[in-house]
């Protein structure tokens, strides 16, 4: 396949950045999108150009490190698929493909396609945990958890923290990410004692990081490679209301 990639190049946070076109004449339909970038980078290196910087690690869709906007879509055209798992057979010979970093006020560009997502970590640090010190846990079977509740917790715990939801949201909101953590922990009996503080603190941290508000457009859930449902945002709102009333 012969492809044209138009890639966002930005030397650092201070640089204004621009799209630069590269021809890739020897793409293979079985390549992953990141392997396509690898091939381009090998060539750029030998030609004395600066290779394209992008985050990636596990390359099997679970670590959450990778993620670029492909033709305007976070992680590209295939549903529930991270960039590393997207293969070139989704494209056609002769295609022109735009490749950009996550765009959001809260995610500054570090270099090229690499962005700073540390705001998501700070949301978790504000209370996305159960306060249990090592060694103090009761026997695992002391508290049975009904299967449907355990399943809901699991579905939300599958969030990989890639930030696609933020990149896809017209408001740059991190509501889907935050709601996944609140739903995961607040639905479990182990998370109940800190239920109110958790939701209030997470939402406060989310706002402090500069993420936008939620207007229920649903772009987040469409872009989410793990299929975190929009229902989780409803759960967050319910938990938040409950906690706010309780606190007064």
């Amino acid at each position: 396949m012969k492809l044209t990639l138009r890639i966002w190049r930005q030397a650092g946070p201070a640089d204004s950045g621009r799209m630069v076109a590269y021809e890739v004449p020897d793409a293979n339909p079985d390549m992953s999108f990141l392997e396509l970038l690898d091939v381009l980078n090998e060539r750029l290196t030998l030609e004395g150009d600066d290779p394209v910087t992008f985050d990636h690690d596990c390359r099997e869709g679970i670590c959450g490190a990778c993620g670029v906007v492909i033709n305007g879509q976070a992680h590209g055209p295939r549903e529930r698929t991270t960039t590393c798992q997207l293969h070139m057979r989704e494209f056609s010979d002769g295609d022109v493909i735009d490749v950009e970093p996550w765009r959001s006020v809260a995610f500054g560009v570090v270099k090229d396609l690499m962005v700073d997502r540390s705001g998501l970590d700070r949301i978790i640090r504000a209370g996305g945990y159960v306060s249990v010190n090592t060694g103090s846990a009761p026997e695992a079977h002391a508290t049975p958890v009904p299967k449907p509740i355990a399943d809901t917790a699991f579905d939300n715990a599958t969030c990989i923290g890639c930030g696609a939801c933020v990149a896809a949201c017209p408001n740059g909101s991190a509501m889907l990410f935050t709601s996944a953590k609140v739903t995961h922990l607040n639905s479990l009996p182990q998370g109940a004692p800190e239920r109110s503080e958790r939701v209030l603190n997470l939402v406060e941290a989310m706002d402090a990081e500069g993420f936008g508000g939620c207007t229920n457009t649903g772009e987040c859930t469409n872009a989410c490679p793990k299929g975190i449902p929009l229902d989780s945002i409803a759960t967050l709102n319910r938990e938040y209301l409950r906690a706010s009333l309780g606190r007064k």
Partner: protein
Amino acid sequence: MTFFKLGDDIADTRAPDVPIEQRWDKRRFDAKLVNPANRRRHSVIIVGTGLAGGAAGATLAEQGYHVIQFCYQDSPRRAHSIAAQGGINAAKNYRNDGDSVYRLFYDTVKGGDFRARESNVYRLAQTSTQIIDQCVAQGVPFAREYSGLLDTRSFGGVQVARTFYARGQTGQQLLIGAYQALSRQIDAGNVEMHERTEMLDLIVVDGRARGIVARDLVTGQISTYLADAVVLATGGYGNVFYLSTNAKNSNASAIWRAHRRGAYFANPCYTQIHPTCIPRSGEYQSKLTLMSESLRNDGRIWVPKKAGDTRSPDQIPEEERDYYLERIYPGFGNLVPRDIASRAAKNQCDLGRGVGPGGLGVYLDFADAIRRLGEDKVREKYGNLFEMYDRITGEDPYKVPMRIYPAVHYTMGGLWVDYDLQSTIPGCFVVGEANFSDHGANRLGASALMQGLADGYFVLPPMLGNYIASSKFDKVTEAHPDVVETVNEATGRLTKLLSINGERTVDSFHRELGEIMWDECGMARSEDGLRKALGRLPELREEFWRSVKVPGTGSQVNQSLERANRVSDFLELGELMCVDALHREESCGGHFRVESQTPDGEARRDDERFAYAGAWEFGGTGEQPILHKEPLNFDYVHLAQRNYA
């Protein structure tokens, strides 16, 4: 020609000489304690945030130590523990199916082909039950039954159902649990977290580990971090093979640098090659993806009987197929252990019967299972794996048999540690896959997660406390000559890499190294092949330092420079792996020497000569390594040859 020198034997002196079930209690009782009020005056560096490192960081911080922690990723949540699929073993015996701490201990020693230390393995089995309690309390959403109680399943090589799991994402869920516990301590100010920061070298002062040199991967700034002890939790070194199931950036630099500073490296040749991975599709292949071995419960493995048969699988009639595992191992069939299944697939491909691109693949066929159980049932059991296969290959496994091929997956070898998890450098502790301790020559499924968390949550913290309580720490500053020298060496190395400006990319060297290692130190190793590799590797290393091309500068994000530094260490480690593989003239677990096999082609161990862990001392650049043997005693599990026919 020999490639090494023989040194004195080495022994673990930390496990107390009492019956095995009392050793850990006794060791903890004998360990010195640090007064809670004094702990915050002591700092500990932890490199890595996977299961072992994340758990250790959270726990030590909870106990009051000041933790300084590092990861090269942009967030501690991305460590490669996250990719583990299958599950975590624990001797809970919730099934009442005859499991016990002793049985888990026994299975692990036997599964490791009698090349692990009994004391350590027993403690691992003892600790396993606490891990499940801890993780459940953290909110890890393990699979549950309708009763609300935890579900378990069985895994290869054992006859009880002791594996706890969270769908096919157990590693992810356990890691998020550890990450959340760590996040809580970061928020509390007890952990100073440095993301996107990579360790370049270990600082050893007066014979003790006192810090690290690390590079900020965003600014390129090289800094020193000093502390009372250093914990390495940096994972395995499977990426020496270039293609593996490891994350792209997983590397051996931290443990290799520590090795060069005096930490012995044990059993480097013990690597696990997993039989069910998706085969490579072309030259551009950057990594390999594992398909859970649970697929072998219902899939049947076959190749065409005729070599070079290029017909599509549906055109090959039943009588022209060879279900070779069922034929050779009628007792275990498709469920033989990982090492045996991997080698059998290689043998078929060597005979020219492999399928797919390059003939490097065998079929894993679900047609019978779909006929027997119905497509819905198969979808329910394996749906997410089939979807993943389809996403990567573009083929629908409900209609076309999967193609699989073995791939490097885990490294049992690692830095030598004693019962306290301390390396041969005092104050340098090693946890998780980075150490060599618990799996012998072969790791059983669902045991890696168990070991990482056991080390991090429960074993390291009291032993680290003992070290701190029994040592006196002189103040070390950045001006100390040993610190200055280490910084200069690390800086000089990066400057050299940037200055070569040759004509080959880092990846081209890494690929070539990987091919040599895979061909000569992979699934089957021979004296001739290993000698050939040992001839070629020093040349490749010289060529690397002469003609690698690393663009850009050191004072910016430079992923080529990061890779170059890691590959330069892989080039040295690869050589030690070959030396170790050559010296071990027996077959055991993941190490198969073609000269040591039974008449029917099975691995033959040699307990007379090789019932020891081989701990290698760095002999100096360009000098031969020195072998120290740790004799292994089997007082509880009696030595026996594995047999799966």
